[in-house]
């Protein structure tokens, strides 16, 4: 992967000028490359990883839902996947090999909201053969970022 993408994947808020220095390119060139990546859909979105468990007032419930579906003629899983991932409650949707077909990541304000979504919107779909829900108890790591507090750097401030 290109250096620019690697740095942005880790820190989307880096200033263009700094990014240019790191990659030994001119600022204008970096801007142009980023625009191009955005246009091609390589860069899809700039998002922030938020550790919601640290927010006092805003608690959410996360769940993983395994979904077994019946694939449809000509379109396979794509059509049913599309029907499902368009629901705003669905944060992520993956097609997997194994004992079930789709894996969904859901976020809701409480267990009831997620249960309602599964029983009222997901399970009744004609292509859905069955679901298994798992509620998340604690997030340790997300998108490569460790969410639990890491210890301070333990090095001495000066050494040879």
């Amino acid at each position, binding site marked *: 992967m290109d*250096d620019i993408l690697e*740095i942005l994947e880790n820190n989307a808020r880096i200033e263009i000028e*700094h990014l240019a*220095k*790191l*990659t*030994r390119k001119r600022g204008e060139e970096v801007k142009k490359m980023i625009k191009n990546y955005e246009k091609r859909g390589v860069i899809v979105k700039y998002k922030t990883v938020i550790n919601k468990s640290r927010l006092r007032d805003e608690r959410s419930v996360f769940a993983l839902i395994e979904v077994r579906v019946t694939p449809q003629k000509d379109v396979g899983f794509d059509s049913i996947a599309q029907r499902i991932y368009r629901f705003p409650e669905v944060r992520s949707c993956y097609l997997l090999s194994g004992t079930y077909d789709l894996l969904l990541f859901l976020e809701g304000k409480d267990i009831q909201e997620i249960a309602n979504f599964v029983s009222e919107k997901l399970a009744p779909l004609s292509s859905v053969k069955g679901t298994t829900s798992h509620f998340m108890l604690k997030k340790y790591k997300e998108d490569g970022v460790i969410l639990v507090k890491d210890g301070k*750097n333990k*090095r*001495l*401030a*000066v*050494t*040879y």
Partner: protein
Amino acid sequence: MVSKRVKKVSHSGIRAFFDLVLGMPEVISLGVGEPDFVTPWRVREKAITSLEEGFTSYTSNKGLKVLREDIAYHLKKKYALRYSPEDEILITTGVSEGLDLALRAILDPKDKVIVVSPHYVAYPALVELNLGEVLFLQTREKEGFKINTKKLEQLLVKYKPKAMILNYPSNPTGITYTENELKKLWRVLSDKEMLIISDEIYEDIFYKESHVCFASLKGAKKKVVLLNGFSKGCAMTGFRIGYACGPKEIIEAMMKIHSFGMLCAPIISQIAASEALKAKKEINLMVKEYKLRRDFIVKELNRIGLHTVMPEGAFYCFSCIEKFKLGDLDFAKALLLQENVAVIPGSAFGISYGGFIRISYANTLENLKEAVVRIERFLKNL
């Protein structure tokens, strides 16, 4: 009570500067000689497992056979170098012990050893503690801090030294040598009755082509003691684990001293080191990060007026401060007190290098960026 030999070894004023830095909690330190990364998890996990499995005993004085075999395999694969795990490889407690053992094994009182300057602080001290005499071979900034072979030849002819300590990529300059440059050096050294002690601890942290091991030069192996370890490349400084490879006779002599003084390197570190030799991916990621930082910091230092030779390895810059008409220690103290940024005065690495400071970029980009802002402000107020 303290021996004359120990008293003789100089303890410069830099220690007081270090104490000053250690007393300032919020300092941005560019003075650290070790990686800012933690040891890769797979290596730490291996160490934890070894404890769980009850590996808490001594090992053979030479070190675990499996580790010696892994090192032999690594050197064969990377440099086509063949060392016998039986009698040409010794596991040491870091390169520092390896260097001490090598010097103790070969030096008689007043034997001369060439130390290339600027140099890692321990080199002359260890030579002196082993009753040897240091011959400083000074390199110059305008020659890219590389060895001038004519000067080397003069020293060799005049003093007939017993050994020479090489270190590349170098601490403190970050410079290294291409294969052709090393061949040129070897041509000067090859017909002399002496040992080359090659400290290649920064072997993995290399930004251009790839590191060339001195012992891999044609005909060199029999006159070289290769010192290496896991501290820098695999961020394992606290494990204190390294190795020495060399001619059977020298390794045997080093082993004799090691077996009485140290017995063996810690078994947990030896097991972890075996795993570290497999952590190529993790090491490459760290090197990539160092390279980004190097590109940033060297360009910035030169822009703000601190002339800096482009380092090709390790994680140090050796920047020139001569034009600011301030001694290195005063410069470092003022920078620390005014801007809370710590660097190491150049004279720590050789008395003739008071016109330089060592800057370590083993630090986060955010800190490096902030440090540049502060140093620039400091220089403007000078």
